């Protein structure tokens, strides 16, 4: 029967279909088993990468305080605008839109992105650092419209330095870590100290970046925070710097109208109260990433604003070096303070005639008056009696050889020659005639301002060569802990008569007929000594004339106060200011500020600059060797200061 045949065929074919369906479903079930059970871990991870994003939370760097607890460097909030390429479909479109909204050049943005092309796609590429509020607003508005899902705006802490670039060279600056700096806690993109205190105490100041794991949807919008490790702020650090003294010193320079450097110490401890180097830069320019143009102009500036003159500039100390010779002669017992030399305006040594700066000569002078008048002949004589090696020995004891060990990076070594040094350096023996120039701080002597500050501090405190330092206390998290001051570098108790002669002579420089009268403060017994660092020899000056280089001499002023139990000591270095005594008013302003503050009186203010006074006679600006009278003739006759 056809009908039964029909039935049978239908039954068979239905059976075939049934089996096919069961087999297909079995295959499906196995596929799902494979995906969901066997490969689960892999897909689990992919799903998590999909919707979880780890954002770095930059830790604020530690706040810096001055010695009185005033905030010097803190952090402000700034906004970074970055591109996260992870889910970007059309990177070029994002770049164009972002550049358009932020008012940037498309090419510039593209270059920034290209530079980071090889980094993992989930890591944000910072396109705009420290974005303006209008840029942030423009971006956020588009983000809400899902137009820029791959652009993120992050709030980051950024260093905020004082205005007017105050103490710029103390703080240094921060910047993104270079390849070579990566390691330990420093990762790509970490902001670390690149100079100054920021660099040397980077480990303390850096803090620990946190992280936030957020859930994002397919267009990159954050849905919720999954986990958060808050950033740990860097240690709070108190510096030995005194804000008011720092300000007073910088004001002093601005008022005086020249660049240079100043280091003010507490001679009892070596704490740096103020450290100035001018011209300087604004560390705020670096805080949010410095732009290429500013960086280039800082680097090519002939005045070298990036150089910290206080520790990196090396200059001839001039007459301030006479203190070393005096100390050496007295401590070695070669002379007593009453030792007298008759100055007739010059003296012959080893067949050459060496000039004093006073044409007619100082007449018969003892140690005190030789310091007061800065008599060259007296110190030529002492130097000749000492020989270069003993001068070197005492220069070292006073801190003028090598580094002072201040807690700042890249300090340069100061140099005072010795026979051993000359042999090592030039393979030649020392000629005794060379000692004569050295004994008035010329020749191969070259020192940094910080080392001269240590010298005057050592003379002030009676022989303890302190190590200058700038860290006073650190907040380790559980309150302030005083930092252990560095060990004293050397300690010699000067003989009382040595100290007496030096202190008297230095007091007379300021308070009697010497060159430092501009630092005189009634009742404060300021002691000091001026000096001139020749930039070029008189012969060289002729040759270099018209080269456009600034060949004017540098001026020094070293000082301490009060004469009895000195509390403050320091050095003022005036770049191309020609006369050491021009630094004295700066020292005066600093010392006055110091005592006003100590005694709770209002701080002194500098009166507006008076009309430039006529150049004064300067005994430090003196030719040394014969054959220079041509240059000297142009100088006005030397006369003791009238103030």
């Amino acid at each position, binding site marked *: 029967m*056809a009908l039964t045949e*029909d039935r049978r*065929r*239908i*039954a068979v*074919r*239905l059976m075939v*279909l*049934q089996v096919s*369906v*069961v087999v*297909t*479903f079995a295959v*499906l*079930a196995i*596929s*799902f*088993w494979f*995906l*969901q*059970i066997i*490969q*689960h871990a*892999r*897909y*689990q991870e*992919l*799903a*998590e990468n*999909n*919707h979880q994003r780890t954002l770095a939370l930059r830790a604020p760097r530690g706040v810096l305080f001055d010695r009185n607890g005033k905030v010097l460097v803190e952090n402000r909030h700034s906004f970074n605008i970055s591109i996260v390429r992870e889910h970007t*479909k059309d990177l070029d479109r994002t770049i164009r839109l972002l550049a358009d909204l932020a008012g940037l050049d498309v090419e510039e943005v593209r270059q920034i992105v290209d530079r980071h092309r090889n980094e993992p796609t989930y890591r944000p590429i910072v396109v705009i650092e420290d974005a303006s509020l209008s840029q942030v607003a423009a971006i956020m508005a588009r983000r809400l419209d899902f137009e820029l899902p791959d652009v993120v705006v992050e709030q980051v802490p950024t260093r905020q330095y004082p205005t007017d670039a105050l103490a710029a060279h103390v703080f240094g600056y921060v910047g993104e870590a270079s390849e070579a700096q990566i390691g330990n806690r420093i990762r790509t993109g970490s902001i670390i100290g690149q100079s100054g205190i920021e660099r040397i105490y980077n480990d303390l100041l850096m803090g620990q970046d946190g992280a936030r794991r957020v*859930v*994002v*949807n*397919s*267009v990159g919008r954050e*849905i919720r925070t999954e986990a958060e490790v808050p950033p740990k702020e860097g240690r709070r650090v108190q510096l030995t710097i005194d804000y008011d003294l720092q300000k007073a010193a910088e004001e002093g320079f601005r008022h005086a109208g020249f660049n240079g450097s100043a280091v003010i110490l507490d001679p009892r401890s070596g704490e740096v109260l103020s450290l100035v180097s001018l011209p300087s830069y604004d560390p705020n320019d670096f805080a949010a990433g410095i732009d290429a143009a500013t960086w280039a102009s800082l680097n090519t500036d002939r005045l070298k604003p990036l150089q910290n003159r206080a520790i990196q500039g090396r200059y001839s100390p001039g007459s301030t070096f006479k203190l070393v010779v005096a100390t050496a002669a007295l401590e070695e017992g070669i002379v007593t303070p009453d030792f007298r030399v008759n100055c007739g305006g010059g003296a012959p040594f080893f067949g050459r005639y060496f000039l004093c700066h006073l044409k007619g000569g100082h007449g018969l002078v003892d140690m005190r008056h030789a310091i007061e008048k800065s008599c060259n002949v007296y110190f030529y004589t002492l130097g000749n009696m000492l020989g270069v090696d003993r001068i070197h020995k005492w220069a070292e004891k006073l801190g003028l050889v090598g580094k002072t060990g201040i807690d700042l990076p890249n300090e340069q070594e100061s140099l005072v020659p010795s026979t051993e040094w000359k042999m090592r350096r030039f393979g030649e023996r020392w000629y005794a005639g060379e000692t004569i120039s050295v004994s008035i701080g010329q020749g191969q002597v070259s020192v940094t301002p910080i080392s001269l500050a240590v010298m005057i501090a050592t003379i002030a405190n009676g022989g303890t060569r302190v190590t200058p330092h700038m860290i006073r206390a650190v907040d380790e998290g559980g309150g302030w802990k005083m930092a252990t001051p560095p060990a004293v570098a050397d300690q010699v108790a000067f003989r009382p008569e040595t100290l007496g002669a030096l202190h008297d002579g230095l007091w007379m420089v300021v308070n009697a007929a010497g060159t430092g009268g501009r630092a005189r403060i009634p009742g404060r017994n300021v002691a000091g000594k001026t000096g001139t660092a020749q930039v070029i020899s008189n012969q060289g000056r002729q040759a270099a004339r018209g080269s456009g280089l600034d060949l004017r001499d540098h001026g020094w002023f070293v000082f301490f106060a009060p004469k009895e139990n000195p509390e403050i000591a320091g050095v003022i270095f005036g770049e191309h200011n020609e006369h050491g005594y021009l630094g004295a008013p700066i020292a005066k302003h600093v010392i006055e500020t110091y005592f006003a503050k100590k005694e709770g009186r209002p701080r002194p203010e500098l009166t507006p600059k008076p009309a430039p006074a006529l150049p004064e006679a300067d005994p430090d600006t003196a030719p040394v060797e014969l054959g220079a009278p041509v240059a000297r003739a142009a100088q006005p006759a030397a006369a003791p200061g009238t103030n």
Partner: protein
Amino acid sequence: MFERRLYHHVDWGLLMAVLTLCGIGLAQIYSATGGWTSTVETQIYGILLGSVALLVCLSIDYRSLADKSHFIYIAVVGLLVYVLFFGAVRGGARRWIDLGVFNVQPSEFVKAALALVLAKFFGESRRGALSRVDLAIAAALTAVPLLIIAQQPDLGTAVTLVPVAFAVVYLAGMPVRLLGVLAIVGLLAAPVLWQFALEDYQRERIATFLDPEQDARGAGYQQIQARITVGSGGLWGKGFTEGTQGQLRFLPVAHNDFIFSVLAEEHGFAGVIVALGLYLFVILRSLEAARLAKDRLGAYLVLGVLASFTFQVIYNITMSAGLAPVKGLTLPLMSYGGSSMIATLAGFGLILNVRMRRFTN
């Protein structure tokens, strides 16, 4: 018309399984769209209207329906033609008739109409093997709506008509040899079709399927995301409304084409097995209805309706696991879509109808 005794012959098991799948689908739509949204409400209306359609298709004897199948067929094709010219456009395709309150997609109803007309055509009592003329007529009946739907364009739905025709013809006694010949012709025609019949985006989809990584941001994205969605579900899943892939929209149209992926993510392999089991039960139970059918017309009708359903279920689930090219094919009973829901439930009304009336004359 609906006699009381027939009530006892309703396949309650099948009906319950179908409604359970609707419920699971509704829950996953709730999850994928993020709560009580208008999408969920629309789906509920779809299920309610579908249930009414199911009751209507159940009540009328399928034989009387088959007698009017040519009218139904012509009416539906007419609607397709109407849509082609006056239909509402969405997403670049003209598929819908805008009724104000909701849109109707006539192409969904073509499947049942075609099953009816083919069942009627082959179910007419006749002897001997199928003639070529018979096959040609069947091919033509299928081709007309298929080509119109392809013009909308909606290749996905158009293709679902092919299993309907094949299933009915196969059961009606098409020689297996002929199947083999068709398969070979199909294979040979593939390159030609590739070249001339497919749009660029369709070629791209297939190319992407073969190597999803080559275009991980574009067309391959959905496929990769589908695998991640399913794979990350694990054994027990991430929990209802806890799926990250679906919730955070890494998977596009999660409430529609990829509803099964969402299920796999949130309920894991366990949930997948339950859902697969229900679908398998529904299909096998329907095949049973075909076997038990009183006449060939009934058997053909059941199989015609079941064919497009089964094809869509298998294809969609394969695609949900990222194992087939992404195509706009929904998962019947679970995916969001009013027209599809109503048409599918109406289809099950026909299947239940055949089984219920296996003893009547």
